[in-house]
């Protein structure tokens, strides 16, 4: 008799979760050694959508790489735009006009809301709730429409320029953004919290699942909502303020439960904080140019540069090494989920398959950003 499942001596078997699997939201493969439905060992296998962006960066000039930045984290592409613009501006010593900084913050935060909405939808889908997906997409659609008006694209933006932004915002955008914020605020309590957050099935499903201690976060270098769900008060926007973030009054939601529910709450609360930032930015929006004078042929001084920004998933770092030429000599991208995912194996050990997927969903993985 032949058994479809090859059992080892210890009665475990290997289950390949992915690279094509509904729960991995992309092409991630997790090699699971299972004992029944319990995970004995979990090993993520990366690289299925690796495109060697770092080599591409070295091959072209500084502005040529800008469109590529959006192709990594396609959910929070503007933050990648922003991070890259920041590091090059640092290296080349470019001053950004204040209005451009405000517009950057507004668009990045709008994009963050869109990213969190999509995460929320996908997470609920992982847990088997299909309807919330449509509600979240409804709201996300509004953000994409707004951003499309001023950036020209819906997902993979190339909006930032060294020393400013590509396009100024107009009154219609401002009115639309205010409308969107009003709409999301009114929908939040009923469609999001009553239906989902306070749902007993959801609460039972993700509370105490995927416990990540603060120490574990530090050892693996986890950042973003994953770290904030473990009681670590770390947000690059607060800790190392960049752009015009110091001018805004916003909180960093921190939860100490260390479980999937805590990470869920962090992200849901962050949407409200992003809305607060956008409102303040719209109120204070100064007049002026949105683009500084920047030499066409950018040749930053030789040296080592680093810039960090907070994306929806955590701290994004750009490590730039210049040799004085017009190409980046070396551009290393520190993507947040790469570090966040690296703790999956340790935490998932001994979990049930269903819980491990609820845990994986709460990490908010964007695979192209991990594989770069």
């Amino acid at each position, binding site marked *: 008799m032949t*058994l479809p499942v090859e059992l080892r001596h210890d009665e475990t078997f290997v289950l390949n979760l992915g690279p094509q699997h509904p729960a991995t939201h992309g092409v991630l493969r997790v090699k699971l050694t299972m004992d029944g439905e319990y995970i004995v060992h979990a090993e993520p296998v990366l690289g299925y959508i690796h495109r060697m962006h770092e080599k591409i960066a070295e091959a072209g000039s500084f502005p040529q790489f800008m469109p590529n930045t959006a192709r990594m984290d396609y959910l929070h592409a503007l933050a990648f735009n922003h991070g890259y613009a920041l590091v090059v501006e640092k290296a080349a010593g470019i001053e950004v006009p204040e209005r451009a900084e405000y517009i950057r913050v507004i668009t990045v935060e709008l994009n963050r809301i869109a990213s969190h909405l999509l995460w929320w939808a996908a997470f609920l889908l992982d847990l088997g709730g299909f309807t919330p997906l449509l509600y979240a997409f409804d709201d996300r659609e509004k953000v994409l429409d707004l951003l499309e008006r001023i950036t020209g694209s819906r997902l993979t933006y190339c909006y930032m320029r060294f020393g400013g932004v590509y396009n100024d915002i107009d009154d219609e955008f401002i009115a639309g953004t205010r409308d969107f914020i009003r709409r999301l605020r009114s929908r939040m309590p009923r469609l999001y919290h009553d239906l989902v957050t306070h749902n007993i099935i959801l609460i039972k499903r993700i509370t105490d699942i995927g416990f990540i201690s603060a120490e574990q976060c530090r050892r693996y270098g986890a950042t973003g909502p994953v770290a904030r769900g473990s009681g670590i008060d770390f947000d690059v926007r607060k800790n190392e303020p960049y752009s015009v973030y110091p001018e805004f009054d916003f909180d960093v939601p921190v939860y100490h439960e260390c479980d999937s529910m805590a990470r869920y709450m962090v992200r849901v609360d962050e949407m409200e904080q992003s809305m607060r930032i956008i409102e303040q930015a719209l109120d204070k929006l100064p007049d002026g140019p949105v683009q500084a004078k920047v030499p066409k042929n950018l040749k930053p001084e030789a040296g080592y540069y680093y810039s960090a920004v907070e994306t929806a998933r955590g701290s994004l770092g750009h490590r730039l090494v210049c040799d004085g030429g017009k190409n980046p000599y070396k551009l290393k991208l520190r993507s947040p989920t790469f570090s966040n995912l690296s703790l999956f194996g340790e935490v998932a050990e001994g979990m049930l398959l269903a819980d491990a997927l609820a845990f994986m969903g709460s990490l908010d993985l964007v695979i192209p950003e991990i594989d770069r």
Partner: protein
Amino acid sequence: MQPLVWPPMANPTLFSLEGAVGIIFLLTIALVVTGGLIAVVSQRLVRAVSGLAICFTGLAGVYYFLLSPFVAMMQLLIYVGAVSILIAFGIMMATPEQEIGPGNAWISRLVGPLGASVGGLFFAALTILGLKTPWQVFPRTAEASGDIEQVGKTLLTSHSMVFELISIVLLMAIIGALVIARRGRN
């Protein structure tokens, strides 16, 4: 319960209810035989279990024709629904048996003839019994129709032994499944 065709007609045609009933009876017999054959002949354990389930289903049909719908339902519920599934479950969880070593080869050679002779003996005995029995029409009773009060009374009086035996079968199935499932865990 609506009466089955009763008393039997002398020469039923194929396109009458009697004919249909007869065909269904033959089908149930065929189920029993093919199921049994699959269970015995099949090389794969899962197929053997499926054969067993088919055989049990056929047997339930036979019970129904014997005017014991309650037993027929029980046959389906317990043997097909519970015992077969537990066996299949056990097989799924068990590690595949290693090839039988050369030391046991003579046993495996002996099993076939032994089984055939025992089976043949039973078959012969039943045939003789069937031929010798003075068959007579069994009167329909309320008990046979599956009336709940009668079923309850018979289960707890005249057939209480059977009732207990069934629970032993179930207990065995549960314990067996547990033993198989628990092996390898500490």
